[in-house]
């Protein structure tokens, strides 16, 4: 496993900042009636998708969920692409046929275009790892799922199958304490969800999901293990969903004290402070970053708004693919 050089610290920080700023902008656009679908915010969880995705090599594969905007940014999905998606334009990942952060980009390793049904990407990511293993490629798959999604049969079947075949995959469970209005105490009878890993015979590691370096390092170790043929790892990244389930959810069921306590652990502020201590960040650089991000977002929103929608008749196209997959030649 490579340790991150301090030089790279700044890009982690910037990507977390970008993630938050993009989601804030998208939320504002939602209220203006300008987005397609709802916004699902990963506020407070930025360290997870950003930190973990940094641990992947260029030709690894990742299957992010809807609070994993950081994954897209780290893999090089542009802010323009993201706003085109939020605005449902013809040039977006789903071309307006689907909404939300259902973005994929095979050429940049964002291999699975998530769907709403939970956690449908997980078994697919397992299949990607299976392909790597079949072809003896030293590549790794990474996927995410929620504390709530851990209760589904699909998560069980996928993780168990990966464990049995020792597939090169890393499962990150983002335990953000809530699944919509449901607290984790109603989701599982465990003190720590990571205890489930032992039930699959794979290593389980709990990590502070608000500590981007810890997330990076934990993931990098798991990725190295997967690449080394040692099979899957189950990482529980403990964090907190700081907003409602979606932009329409006031989340009154979340105790304010809980939000207050977690606000203290904000991953961006925390890492910012660390960078300042290390003399990698100061006010002027931070303002500079803020400015760059906001320019990037302004550009992207303008670009997206200038982008056309798909013509209405395309509502019924592309249900099937054309061409043939093999000539058996």
């Amino acid at each position, binding site marked *: 496993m490579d340790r991150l050089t301090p030089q790279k610290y700044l890009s982690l920080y910037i990507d977390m900042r970008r993630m938050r700023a993009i989601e804030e902008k998208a939320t504002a656009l939602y209220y203006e009636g300008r987005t397609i679908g709802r916004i699902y915010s990963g506020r407070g969880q930025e360290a997870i998708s950003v930190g973990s995705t940094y641990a992947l090599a260029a030709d690894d594969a990742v299957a992010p969920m809807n609070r994993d905007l950081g994954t897209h940014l780290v893999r090089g999905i542009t802010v323009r692409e993201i706003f085109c998606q939020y605005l449902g334009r013809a040039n977006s990942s789903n071309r307006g*046929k689907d909404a939300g952060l259902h973005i994929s980009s095979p050429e940049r390793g964002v291999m699975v275009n998530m*769907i709403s049904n939970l956690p449908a990407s997980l078994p697919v990511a397992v299949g990607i790892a299976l392909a790597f293993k079949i072809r003896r490629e030293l590549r790794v798959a990474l996927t995410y799922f929620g504390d709530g999604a851990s209760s589904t049969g699909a998560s069980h079947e996928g993780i168990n199958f990966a464990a049995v075949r020792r597939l090169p995959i890393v499962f990150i469970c983002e335990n953000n304490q809530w699944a919509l*209005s449901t607290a984790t105490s109603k989701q599982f009878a465990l003190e720590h969800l990571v205890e489930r890993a032992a039930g699959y015979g794979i290593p389980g590691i709990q990590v502070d999901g608000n500590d981007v370096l810890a997330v990076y390092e934990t993931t990098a170790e798991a990725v190295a293990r997967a690449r080394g043929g040692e099979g899957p790892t189950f990482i529980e990244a403990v964090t907190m969903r700081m907003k409602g389930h979606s932009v329409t959810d006031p989340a009154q069921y979340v105790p304010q004290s809980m939000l207050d306590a977690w606000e203290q652990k904000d991953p961006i502020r925390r890492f910012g402070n660390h960078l300042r201590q290390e003399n990698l960040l100061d006010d002027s650089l931070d303002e500079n970053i803020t400015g760059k991000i906001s320019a990037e977002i302004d550009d992207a929103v303008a670009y997206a708004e200038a982008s056309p929608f798909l013509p*209405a008749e395309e509502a019924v196209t592309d249900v099937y693919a054309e061409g043939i997959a093999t000539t058996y030649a």
Partner: protein
Amino acid sequence: MRERSYRAAIREALLEAMSADERVFLLGEDIEYAGVYGVTKGLVDKFGCDRVIDTPIAETAIVGGAMGAALMGLLPVVEIQFADFIAAAMDQLVNMVAKYHYRTRTPLPLVIRAPAGAILSTHGSTGPFHSQNPEAWFAHTPGLKVALPATPYDAKGLLLAAIADMNPVLFLEQKALYNEKGDVPEGIYTVPLGQARLAREGNDLSIITYGAMLSPALRAADLLDGEVDVEVLDLRTIVPLDKEAVLTTARKTGKILIVHEATRTAGFGAELAALIAESAFEFLDGPIMRLSSPDAPVPAAPELAGYYLPDVNEIVTAVRRLSAY
């Protein structure tokens, strides 16, 4: 006249059923809090968490769990958060639940509520995974009943009938209608499963429909007033199907337009057309036409969704085409 929304009518049915019979209880994701569409709001305060039970995200455990409770004499009402997610409970539902009475003659009174269909707003539609209309799968699964109320009155009365039914009933709430208002009497009343309602009388042509498409069908009929005299039949339940009502209107007008929001191929409209083509053939004065969503997932962006979903204008056009035949 006591006006209530479709949502309120359903909540009222739950509340009155739970008050009247302590065996009735609710099981589902996030229903303590209110449910995504707020239908179960406040019920936990009245009935406690032993009768309004939040579950993990586990549709198979929810449906199977409800069945077990039904076997022990309780009357479970399940909420599946969106009809799209019923697929995650498919095996329990079609193999265990649906076939149980046939195999054992043990009744399984059990209701599965789920919001179905698309909503169109300024944010586009509810998209490919929160808009589906899977009723045809379940009409093709002997052992299940399937209700799709089109009005607040029916929503309450059909739900109370479904809870009182001895069989598993899939109760597909039409999410586009949650805010629609209509006459809803206080107190317990039931609308029998298997009785269609003649929503509008007419002589020239019949629209057969159900669920969210009733209201555009009626609007289309009104728009065509004086031009084509349209009869509109609201099936209310597709299993049991009120075959008599379907054949009666077919024999009366001889021209049939079937309208539903679900996709076309092998949708329930096909069954209606087949029934009529087999049993009212001699009375037909024209081809049996179907209007539905096209064979594609439900797109999200507004223009795509507008194009995709059947609406009043398309119904009007279809009626004109058929009546000109």
